[in-house]
């Protein structure tokens, strides 16, 4: 299988605190990968390193044969190929729903306004919010905001979509609507890398599950392997703790 992004020996430290240690990891085209692990295990940092919101301390991120950590690499161009969905939505507060999905297309990708509008409407339909184009972010519920954020990321038509705990900031009754959209997307063959605490969801949609602990990838494999036959002691104890609740 062709990989979209390949990470080699990635490390990240905040001061003397080493958050990621020598991570080797790749995402293949069309694959849905869920990253699980307890808080502080470095999974969010891994995601933020991949799109350079955090500058990795060492290692390589290879995209289309280039190491994007090379000094002269165009970071902004690379970032347009990665969609990012944040835990706290981060919709542009000053723009309405439609413009949130358009601004990146017209200003960064230089698409024409009408093209951008068509693309935005297409993806707002996918997330079921095409009727809300005139609303401002503060007028939406958490679940709606996150669905708009997903549409905004999709509107850039990226190679891979990154989700950083997309349902962690939501009220319980709104988690379902966001996961439903994500499941539908997973079914369309979109490449997705999801950091999540939703174990049932991870089991259901993933092609591959990655378990992280203390800054390293402890174990990875199919959902069946990780959830039903974990090999590593740390994976076993994490799953036991998680499913007890």
């Amino acid at each position, binding site marked *: 299988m062709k990989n979209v992004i390949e990470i080699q020996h990635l490390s990240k430290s905040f001061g003397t605190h080493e958050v990621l240690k020598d991570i080797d990891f790749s995402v293949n085209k069309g694959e849905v990968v869920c990253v699980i692990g307890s808080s502080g295990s470095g999974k969010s940092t891994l995601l933020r390193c991949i799109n350079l919101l955090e500058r990795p301390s060492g290692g390589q991120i290879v995209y289309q044969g280039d190491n994007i950590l090379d000094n002269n690499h165009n970071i902004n161009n690379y970032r347009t190929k990665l969609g990012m969905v*944040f835990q706290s939505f*981060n919709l542009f507060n000053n723009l309405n729903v439609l413009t949130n999905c358009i601004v990146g297309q017209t200003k960064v990708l230089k698409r024409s306004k009408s093209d951008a509008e068509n693309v935005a409407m297409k993806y707002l339909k996918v997330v079921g919010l095409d009727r809300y184009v*005139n609303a401002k972010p503060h007028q939406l519920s958490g679940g709606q905001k996150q669905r708009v954020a997903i549409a905004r990321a999709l509107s850039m038509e990226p190679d891979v979509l990154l989700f950083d705990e997309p349902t962690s900031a939501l009220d319980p009754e709104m988690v379902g609507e966001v996961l439903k959209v994500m499941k539908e997307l997973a079914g369309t063959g979109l490449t997705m890398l999801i950091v999540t605490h939703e174990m049932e969801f991870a089991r259901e949609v993933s092609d591959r599950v990655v378990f992280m602990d203390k800054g390293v990838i402890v174990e990875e494999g199919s959902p069946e392997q990780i959830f039903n036959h974990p090999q590593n002691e740390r994976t076993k104890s994490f799953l036991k703790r998680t499913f007890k609740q």
Partner: protein
Amino acid sequence: MSIDWIISIATENWEMFLRGAWMTLLIATLGTVFGAIIGLLIGIINTIPKPERGLKRIVLKLINIILGIYVGFFRGTPMIVQAMVVFYGAAQAFGVDMDRTFAAIFIVAINTGAYMAEIVRGGIISVDKGQFEAAQAIGMNHWQTMIHVVLPQVLRNILPATGNQFVMNIKDTSVLNVIGVTELYFQTKSVSGNNFRYFESFFVACILYLIMTFVVTKILHYFEKRLDGPQNYQMIDDLEQMEGKKA
């Protein structure tokens, strides 16, 4: 009686008063506008992310230091002293004979710029970090992030403080009479110098200042409301239904 005096002074000298008020408003308005632009530029420049090392970092650091000195100097000295230094200093040192109105606007603008730089910095800090990250994540550079996402929010946030600055400028332009600008205070001094009725003449000036600051405050409140936009939004199928009924 002084009310009669006030009325007669106002009616006899209305042209001088109005010309003074106009000059005050002109200096305060242009000074505030240019000052706000200076403040915004400094705010943008100060928040450019610095690379870890290299020439760009040194240049940015140097610019930051220079801008810091500018802000420190003009916030830390009285405008009346700055006016004397700029106007007479320029004449003496470089033989430049500055137009008095231009000099006045220049002084108010750089003074306001120093204050606005701090106000803008506060405004940028108050924008949620997630807004920057989301803009970066879709590939925007620093300018695009600022222009399309951050500054519109900053402008809304700093509007009350900017209005405050504007009102202060209307009043503080009175100190520029020291360089002979024919603003309202200067004109009032001329009027009272002729009639020796100080209380009544300056009472008229008082009313004029009050009217100017009041009107400006009201206009800015109106802008704030406009920027906030409507409270409600229209769903698309509601709009379509309405159009359907029309058709």
